[in-house]
């Protein structure tokens, strides 16, 4: 008797039989277990667009403002909604949205988009044209800046607010140093800045948001306009003056830290609260954090128009708004939501009362109560001529503005000279715009 008689090798037939028996047993256990537990297997095919909530994606919602808006929509219409929070990191948000749209993902119906991404996604044909859904009355209800926005960027987005950047400063520090007000020109910015830097070596006279999270492009366009240049041309004299000015503020005048290359939206809050910044630039809606009870700068700050360069004083307008996914099986409902959510009643509740952000609606902007609640509205009015939309009337605003920001960053980090950076910017933007 040999080994194979004692332990005969497993034949193929037996092995197949064993596998088959195991599979059947597993299926019986699963089904039987399900019967015992009450679980029933989900049907493989799910009806699309009819058995899921209207899904909206947007900013983080710590305040519950968006949750409140969606609850109200559900109360009024009976349509169930679901809110998703997008990544707070802007490049991450864009990359995620790009993947969703590119793959035709149809489980998100409404996106909250900024000025740049809406342009790119519109070019790609991923967004619904909302113009047919806007009644003449509703169109009349929007502020003039919104009409400009529609002219530049089309009707694939309905804005929930229109804000602008302003120059913020510490009133207490300027007062202590003997200054009556903030600098009005670039020259004053430098002289005051150098004086303040001497008096307060642990503070920076001007701490703009830098190269992280598209902060560089925001700074770049404002400064380039202030220099009398055109950011989309880039190699004109005004742009070079502006690039040189920012370079000198950091490397020669010593009034701006070179750390701005690593500073973005999320870094600015702590920097301002820590007292390191004597002046900075920021967007609307700062009151809620700067005047919070635990704020270190409560009642010690103010904002003003940007110091003027040779070309004047400029800040940039910007907006976020609702866009409808063209791949959504519920475009009609999604469009209705977008139109509803940008009406004065809704904007008053969640953008004005809760978030203190300037509304896009003309009637709200004219309302004295709103103006008292949001002093920023006066700033928008009184500086209207100095507030401009960034270059968004092209096929890829994301790339154009990012290129403008990189042009400035290369000068700040001294990777390129001003001349080289301006020429590089010009060549790159020309390639993008075509």
């Amino acid at each position, binding site marked *: 008797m040999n080994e194979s008689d004692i332990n005969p090798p497993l034949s*193929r037939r037996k092995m197949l039989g064993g596998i088959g028996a195991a599979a059947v047993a597993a299926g019986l256990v699963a089904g039987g277990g399900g019967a015992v537990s009450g679980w029933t297997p989900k049907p493989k095919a799910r009806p699309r667009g009819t058995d899921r909530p209207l899904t909206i994606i947007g900013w983080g919602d710590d305040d519950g403002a968006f949750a409140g808006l969606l609850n109200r929509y559900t109360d009024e219409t009976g349509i169930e909604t679901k809110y998703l929070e997008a990544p707070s990191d802007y*490049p991450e948000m*864009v*990359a995620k949205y*790009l*993947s969703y*749209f*590119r793959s035709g993902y149809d489980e998100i119906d409404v996106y909250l988009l900024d000025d740049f991404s809406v342009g*790119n*996604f519109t*070019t*790609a*044909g991923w967004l619904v044209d909302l113009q047919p859904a806007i009644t003449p009355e509703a169109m009349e209800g929007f502020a003039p800046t919104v009409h400009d926005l529609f002219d530049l960027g089309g009707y694939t987005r309905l804005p929930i607010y229109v804000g602008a950047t302003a120059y913020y400063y510490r009133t207490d520090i300027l007062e202590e140093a003997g200054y009556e007000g903030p600098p009005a020109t670039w020259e004053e910015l430098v002289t005051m800045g150098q004086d303040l830097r001497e008096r307060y070596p642990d503070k920076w006279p001007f701490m703009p948001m830098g*190269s*992280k999270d598209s902060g560089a492009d925001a700074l770049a366009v404002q400064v380039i306009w202030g220099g009398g240049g055109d950011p989309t041309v880039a190699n004109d004299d005004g742009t070079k003056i502006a690039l040189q000015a920012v370079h000198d503020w950091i490397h020669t005048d010593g009034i701006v*830290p*070179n*750390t*701005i*290359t*690593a*500073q973005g939206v999320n*870094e600015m809050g*702590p*920097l301002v609260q*820590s007292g*390191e910044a004597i002046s900075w630039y920021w967007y609307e809606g700062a009151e809620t954090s700067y005047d919070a009870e635990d704020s270190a700068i409560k009642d010690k700050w103010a904002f003003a128009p940007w110091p003027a360069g040779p070309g004047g004083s400029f800040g940039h307008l910007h907006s976020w708004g609702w866009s409808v996914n063209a791949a959504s099986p519920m475009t009609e409902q999604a469009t209705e939501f977008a139109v509803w959510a940008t009406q004065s009643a809704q904007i008053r509740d969640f953008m004005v009362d809760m978030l203190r952000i300037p509304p896009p609606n003309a009637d709200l902007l004219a309302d004295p109560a709103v103006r008292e609640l949001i002093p920023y509205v006066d700033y928008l009015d009184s500086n209207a001529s100095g507030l401009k939309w960034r270059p968004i009337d092209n*096929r*890829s605003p*994301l*790339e154009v503005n*990012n290129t403008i920001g*990189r042009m400035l*960053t*290369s000068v*700040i*980090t001294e*990777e390129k000279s001003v001349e080289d950076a301006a020429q*590089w910017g010009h060549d790159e933007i020309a390639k993008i715009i075509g």
Partner: protein
Amino acid sequence: MSRRGRPRFKTYWFVYLLILPAVGYRSFWSVWPLIDTVRLSLTDSNFIYGTESFIGLENFRTLVSDPDFRNSVLISVSYTVIIVIGTVILGLCVAQLLAKRVRGRVLGRIAILLPFTIPTVLAGQMWRSLATNTGSPINDILLRLGVIDERIPWLSNAWSARLIVILASLWRFTPFAAILFVAALGSVPKELHEAAQIDGANGWRRFRHITVPVISPTVLVVMMFQAIEALRAFDIIYALTKGGPGTATDVLSYHAYQDMFFYGKSGYGSAQSMVLLVASLAIVGFLSAWLVRRQRKMLM
């Protein structure tokens, strides 16, 4: 068995059938994306503009004249060389320590190997917290020790940001090298060291003439793995600097990602990925050939 000694298909068809699902699944998710990437690299595919026309090698020609791409290549190559050399040297040093029979050796091994268990993205985030401009523990320690007079903006300056990236990468990748070297060092015959010691050879000479030849295949394997790892480094860069400040740490993989997933330039991004793939294959090929040659020499 067939006449030439190779397994006959007739005999083993069932085995092939059983592994076919796994191989097919793996191939689908590896080979198909590779083929599609090659295809895309030969087109002007752009998600945003909706274009996808065949343009041949135009993307690759554009890459050659693209200063940003050349910068990424330079940064990637520099980073790879430093990481490979660094992990080999540090890995050997750590392995020598781990190989010694000292008290607390087990705890020491755990502490040294811990970075290897941390996901790379998390490692990047950790180092970002250490080097952040506001409240950096590194600055606090150096200030207290009197090494520096004022805070260093680690992530805002090109060279200090690169230094942080390298330190974070070495911290993360050295344990892997150390593990392999510990095993390799264990294979060095003690008798050779004893004999050399008797003959009057000092530690360095014994290391150079006994240890190094024996562990050289392992060194080559480590170099190969680390080179590939460094060339395709993405998550640590993403978490730590996102290619900044400016383009100071804009390695090739991150640059390709930006073009592909931020600007929608899938064709151009794919071309960059192909360059990365070819570079990785070249390194693997070169080091593998060297390894085989080395092993043949040792057997002779």
